[in-house]
């Protein structure tokens, strides 16, 4: 990559020497200090993320650029955002009339599928990791990339032809669907958070603020890097701010791709009621 005078983030290849950081010689897949964080994915690459400005990528042997890219754009950048003081959540988000609506859930909870179903009408903001500026009212969500990771079934159900989508890597059974339509580079105010849960029926439930707080904590992407007290305190305040300024609800639904249109309608109804969000 060409060097520029005002480079925001530098991503470069390099060898990462980490043995001095471990107490034992067994493989440790992550560690973090105030300034640096390390994360490794067996068989893919290791990352050293420094001071919110630099990502060093140490590729495993026989790994091509295409395979490592999702990890750079996802995990490594997520950790970098955390180093810059943002609240980084396991979450997807879409824009409803310029307002961000987020869906939180761990891997496999269906947040990408949810985002993809909504992106047909509501532009994507992020599909997997949500970086939130949590010290404002309302908090802001930063856009990620106009693409979504989908498994072939979900892609098909949403009207994509799986054979025409890029596969993420040769190992993972996931595809990348481009979602450029209406994608905005600007951070958007966060106006609603839904915690995704599996259930028998489709419904949206109110959740008390204490439970909302715990849901945000449990869905924090960078939880394992919160060791230093000052970071833990900051994270705590950020979560509390989101809970104070943004309505948080539970979205319960069965894992049925055919039910997605119905869930979208239920969400639209919920977003119409009260608040500042008006669906056009």
């Amino acid at each position, binding site marked *: 990559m060409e060097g520029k005078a005002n480079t925001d983030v530098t991503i470069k290849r390099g060898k990462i020497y980490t043995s001095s950081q471990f107490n034992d010689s067994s493989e440790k897949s992550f560690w973090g200090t105030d300034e640096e964080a390390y994360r490794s994915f067996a068989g893919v690459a290791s990352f050293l993320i420094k001071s919110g400005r630099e990502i060093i990528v140490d590729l495993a042997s026989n790994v091509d650029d295409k395979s490592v890219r999702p990890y750079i754009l996802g995990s490594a950048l997520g950790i970098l955002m955390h180093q810059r003081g943002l609240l980084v959540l396991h979450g997807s988000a879409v824009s409803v009339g310029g307002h961000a609506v987020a869906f939180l859930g761990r891997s496999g909870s269906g947040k990408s599928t949810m985002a993809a179903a909504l992106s047909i009408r509501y532009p994507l903001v992020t599909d997997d990791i949500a970086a939130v500026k949590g010290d404002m009212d309302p908090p802001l969500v930063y856009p990620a990339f106009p693409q979504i990771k989908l498994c072939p079934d979900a892609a098909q159900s949403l009207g994509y032809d799986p054979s025409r989508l890029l596969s993420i890597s040769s190992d993972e059974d996931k595809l990348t669907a481009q979602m450029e339509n209406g994608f905005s580079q600007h951070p958007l105010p966060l106006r609603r958070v839904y915690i995704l849960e599996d259930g028998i029926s489709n419904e949206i439930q109110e959740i008390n603020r204490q439970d909302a*707080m715990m849901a945000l*904590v449990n869905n924090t992407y960078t939880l394992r890097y919160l060791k230093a007290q000052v970071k833990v305190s900051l994270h705590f305040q950020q979560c509390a701010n989101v809970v104070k300024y943004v309505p948080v609800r539970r979205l319960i639904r069965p894992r049925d791709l055919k039910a997605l249109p119905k869930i979208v309608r239920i969400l639209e109804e919920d977003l119409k009621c009260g608040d500042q969000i008006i669906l056009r």
Partner: protein
Amino acid sequence: MNEVPFGSRMVVATKDQVSCDLGSESAILNLKDGTYYGLNPMGSFIWNLIKEPKELGEIRDLILKEYDVEPEICERDIQKFLNDLSAQGLIEYRD
């Protein structure tokens, strides 16, 4: 357990925690062990009072002003609540 009457015992939140209000509720994070706690509105009310040292009698009187409750029940509930907080290392008595 001890001979200091309820009213004059003094209590304060410890330094090893951070807390924030969530509207009428509160959340506390115990920095010593990373445990999170949630407080309902009554618990929040008391918690906000004891961020500075307070006598239990003063806490009781302030509650009686705000809420419609019997003084004996009020004292009992305050004591139980503070016992719970103390057991978690979130408050300390200053006797």
